[in-house]
């Protein structure tokens, strides 16, 4: 046994795992430094025993549960955003590849120069560094993701705003507090379902990550 392993065992011991290794004791006989560390550890544990056990505030459990739920909601939002971005990227890439070049005619107000000319002109004067193949691919992913986000905002966003502006019909409101929905059992059932589904959802997320790993959108999304 060397000092590093002895130190790791001591750390585990401080975390609550008893040390049952005769090699460790043998090492302490030989190594003064580790012996002094082990003795300091023992003193620390003894001292901690005399301290009064902290009493958790009454609301701690609620706060933890709330925090965990909030964290879970955030994780779900992140996941949804990642999926949405992934899908948007895939759809946009398909659309871009499908339609882009074969659209006849020049776009209104667009530059009539050829792509080659544009590329040449862009680099003239600025002495811009020529990007590598990977950088070009990353840039492509970035541009397509931004384009799809802008288009989504332009179309879906506007519609969503409009729909949210439409007022709901106003009927007399009666507060029926007694009509409590069966939230607790339903939550219990949905938790069982989502816990069972967890391996599938985790794998789906990992699969998307795996195939999008090389694209820059991942960091942008988060």
């Amino acid at each position: 046994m060397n000092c590093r392993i002895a130190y790791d065992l001591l750390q585990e011991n401080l975390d609550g795992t008893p040390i049952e290794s005769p090699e460790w004791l043998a090492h302490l006989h030989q190594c003064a430094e580790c012996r002094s560390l082990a003795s300091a550890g023992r003193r620390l544990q003894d001292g901690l025993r005399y301290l009064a056990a902290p009493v958790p505030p009454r609301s701690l459990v609620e706060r933890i549960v709330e925090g965990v739920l909030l964290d879970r909601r955030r994780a779900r939002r992140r996941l949804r955003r990642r999926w949405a971005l992934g899908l948007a990227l895939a759809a946009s890439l398909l659309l871009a590849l499908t339609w882009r070049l074969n659209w006849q005619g020049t776009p209104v107000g667009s530059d009539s120069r050829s792509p080659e000319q544009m590329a040449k002109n862009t680099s003239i004067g600025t002495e811009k560094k020529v990007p590598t193949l990977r950088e070009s691919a990353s840039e492509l992913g970035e541009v397509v993701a931004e384009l799809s986000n802008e288009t989504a905002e332009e179309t879906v966003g506007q519609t969503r705003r409009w729909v949210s502006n439409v007022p709901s019909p106003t009927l007399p409101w009666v507060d029926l507090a007694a009509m409590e929905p069966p939230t607790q059992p339903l939550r219990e059932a949905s938790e069982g379902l989502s816990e069972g589904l967890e391996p599938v959802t985790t794998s789906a997320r990992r699969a998307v990550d795996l195939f999008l790993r090389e694209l820059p959108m991942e960091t942008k999304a988060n």
Partner: protein
Amino acid sequence: MRLFNRLVGGSCFFARLCFLCVLCACVVSSSVLRAATPREELLRLVPDSVAFCAVIQDLRGHAATLQTSPFAEQLRQAPFVVKMRNSDKWKKLDQIESEMKEKLGLDWKRLRDDILGDAVVLAYRPGSPGQPQQEQGLMLLRARNEKVLADLIERINKVQKEEGELKELTERRHYGMVYYRRLEYDKQTQQDKPPTFYYLRGPILAVSEQESMLRQVVDHDRRSSGSTESEAARRLRELDAEQALLAVWLNPRAFDADVDAKAANTPAERAAGVKQFALYWKALESVVFSLSPRESDIKLSFGVRARVAELPSAAQRLFREGATASDLWRRFPQSALLAAGGRFDSAAFLDVIGGFLTPQGRKTLHETLNRPVAALLAEEDFTGDLLPALGPDWGLCLSAPTRQIRNPKSEIRKAEVENQGMPNILFALRVDASRTKKALERTLLSALDFAARFVILAHNNQHPDSPIALKTSAVNGQEVRYLAGERSLPTGAQPAYGLLDGYLVLTSSLESMKRFTQVSPGSSPSSEDPVPLLRISFKDWRSYLTDHREAVAHLLTEHDQLSRDEAGRQIDGFLYALRFVERLELSQRSSPGQVIFSLTVQTAQALKK
């Protein structure tokens, strides 16, 4: 034909034998040829026990069809597309394309048509339970032109070597088949990236970060006979995704170990739900999601295939009921803005939910439902006595109010014009009193009367100057109740309820109640027909918004403090967006052991010339 008769009908045994051999050979070869689509060529190489398999096929064909379609033409003129095409980012794409073309000798069109145009497959296999990092991914593609593909790979390798991004490219062999290991260097982190492996044979390219995965592809390629259908291809065919542009297959068997481990390790208080989930999961055979552009619509499908006999009996009842079309669809107008409906066995659903709960949880569920509802209905056991008699047919319909024919001679009051935009909403639920011994109709109507009087009491106390009242009327000889109050309710709005033709109907106007009793003639749908679940008619939304523009603008200005002009602009923008889509339909098609839910988006212009 004469030759056929001579060979088959004649006495020459040898000729007959020859003919049969040729016939057999034709059948066999035609089946092989039929099977050898680019998609199936790739799916045969997909290693076993992958969890997800995504297939994109015939991108070239779909692109060619779409480009010349009236829908693409309509889209080209759309302001957001014009804006996008004129944006700097769009121009940036031009620049990137020219850079890529310079380096790789390919533009987008050739990349789409020659490289990605036939088929692309992405497959994923998760790590073993607790070892997610052991996951494996694979990309397969079949190019139209193998020379273009080989040149592209060669150029990528060459360019990346020159740019210092490709550190090593080494040849490896597996059973004599050559594949390559690429080691890339990340200039940003100044570290080597994980190696990538690729295998190129003719027009087929396989790429993976895991050597073992790639070797399995090589193994499949060596052994592939060409006549057997791969599991992925079979699963996609079973769930009607054979021709889809994009299809994703989920293989439940790849998660069995994870689901079992989850069920075994979940603490006892939460174990009921996870164990029940495992029961359903084991019965599941495959799940397929697909996207298919067709002549005049785009179909998104979600198919599930399962061994129904292994499902709990409540789930079997639930699916069996859902597989039949509801009679309510014959009562909803074709021009409904939105209609939803189906057959739902709520008692079976409650049992399905109960399966995911502990005995205590089930008891709480029944108690929580019984406490308020049973009290309202003056019954003790809502879930036991009344729930089985409610349904299975249910439906919701939103329709435009009857069009106001303007008479230039008579002036319509301003208030009336402003309020006439409210669409009619109707909810219907089948009530089958034969399923319970209780006097269900009377119980339900009493409860609704009570609720209505409660609402009236609350309202009239708050608004003594504009009271509402409960009135009675008759629709098709059946008694209905409605709320009346000229100054409290929008013009035309008369919230009403009643039992009509065996349905409990709740609606926002008497007019839609009358319409409900008019059943359109039609034969009962066959079991092969898709069962409708949801329908949104954007065409009718357009008509509704155009006809009631003034009233809707009034509602918007009141609610959102918008100016009339701004409200008008918002309506015009929304109307413009609605021009692209005609109809959206959600339906389900069931056959033994499987169900496919399809969302069909019918475009205003055809997707094919």
